[in-house]
């Protein structure tokens, strides 16, 4: 089983990113669950979502305590949340950042999702949309296939710019 924890702020689309990722994995023919942890959060507060991907039906409903992959959609969270907590030895961190960030041990990857969203003018209520471009980065990492990522995005969003943004992230990420 591959376990993913997504850190974001309320309103940045972390919950939808988890659903998109689960849908893409499902379209790859795998079992997947997406499970947001809802607290008393509101716009701007740190939130966390979980995705599990496996070849067998998934019976686990509790939170992910030892993720294989941590995704940080907003690196400013790293000042207040220990995003590396429980990360498996040999686990991976994917950061939404134009530059590498020191202090992230393990295999740390980065891609400028915010820049990609702004370049495509993917902005809702003043916030860049990060959940569709991140699917492209995850496809590059081999978590899901690119066709399934694009299919999942099209199933949930009509605007083709989301697919373009995912492709841009796929190209930009140096895996």
């Amino acid at each position: 089983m591959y376990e993913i924890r997504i850190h974001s702020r309320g309103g940045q689309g972390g919950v939808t990113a988890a659903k998109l990722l689960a849908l893409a994995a499902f379209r790859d023919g795998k079992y997947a669950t997406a499970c947001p942890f809802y607290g008393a959060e509101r716009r701007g507060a740190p939130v966390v979502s979980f995705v599990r991907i496996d070849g067998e039906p998934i019976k686990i409903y509790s939170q992910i305590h030892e993720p294989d992959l941590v995704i940080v959609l907003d690196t400013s969270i790293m000042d207040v949340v220990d995003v590396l907590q429980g990360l498996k030895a040999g686990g991976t961190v994917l950061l939404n950042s134009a530059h590498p960030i020191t202090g992230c041990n393990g295999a740390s990857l980065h891609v400028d999702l915010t820049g990609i969203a702004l370049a495509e003018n993917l902005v809702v209520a003043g916030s860049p949309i990060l959940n569709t471009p991140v699917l492209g980065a995850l496809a590059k990492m081999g978590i899901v296939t690119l066709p399934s990522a694009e299919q999942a995005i099209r199933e949930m969003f009509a605007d083709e710019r989301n697919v373009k943004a995912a492709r841009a992230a796929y190209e930009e990420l140096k895996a």
Partner: protein
Amino acid sequence: MLTIATGNKAVAAAVKAARPGVVAAYPITPQTEIVEQIAEYVTDGDLESRYIPVESEHSAMAACIGASVTGVRTFTATSSHGLLYMHEMVHWAAGARLPVVMANVNRALGPGWNTWAEHTDAFSQRDTGWLQVFVGTVQEAYDATLMAFKIAEDERVLLPVMVNLDGFSLSHITQALDTVDIGDFLPPCHLPHAIDTENPLGYGPMTGPADYFRFRWDIERSMRDARGVIAEVEGEFCERFGRSYGPTEDYRCEDADVVVVAMGTLGKEAEVAIDRLRDEGIKAGSMRLRWFRPFPDLDLAGRDVVVIDRDYSFGFGGVVAHSIRSKAGVSPYSVIAGLGGQEVTYNDIADFVRDRRPGEETWFGVNDHV
């Protein structure tokens, strides 16, 4: 059609397939997504139904009762305080023998204010005469909701059915969902005692002790008959759609020395704990209790039993543990866990089994054995 959906969306999809004539509801977290989705179906023309947005849960159930008494298929959904607010009408729906179907997204009761999973809300309606089923997966939320209409509307039952799913841990999790073409699985609702609005009649509202007593016995008789009807409907569902359900979902129980009894998502996650325990050589199994009313016969004699209660009856004990004690004749290790959404993992459940002390009760993470 195979897709992925949340538990809430699965319930809404089943309601769309069941085509109720009236849906009356009031939103409450974590149920809101169900009635939002149904309202959208109605607005978009995907569901031909009268959607009544009422001002309270008491009115939601009252509207369902008023519609159901004319023979119309009805549905509502609620959670927690909403369910408690409609309590008087919950009794009334059963007493009037109306096959209302309600989804209850199990949530804790305040104060302290808490929107996470707990089963005390449903158990507070235990003695109302409603059938209660608890589901453990998104697919089961869909399947059980479809079957609930057929069971409730069966003339041998004619009692309302509550479909319970854990707040957030199931209502908001995304899993695979296979929606079906139900064909003639669900025939039109026929209520033998429906009022005829074209031919209005007056009924005496006062019922004397002798008749009232007989009506109460009649509810219990139907509850007992409901066991057979549930088995029939679940059997037909399996034949048509290939998914099998029963009063419990038993996992590796055949040769088990110790059996975990739990409900909802904890009952499903227990299966992961069982696999770990088996790997250690502990002959463990799990029994996920699906139907709570009518309460099924359970074969637990001669083994250790660990009951996980996501509920509590203050001054007495865990409601499920007590039910097991009195109905299955065993003295379980009673674990109180998961109240208000407390995190309980498969590792914790495996520990409950390893550390079991039959006859005792413990509050997970709070105190020592008591």
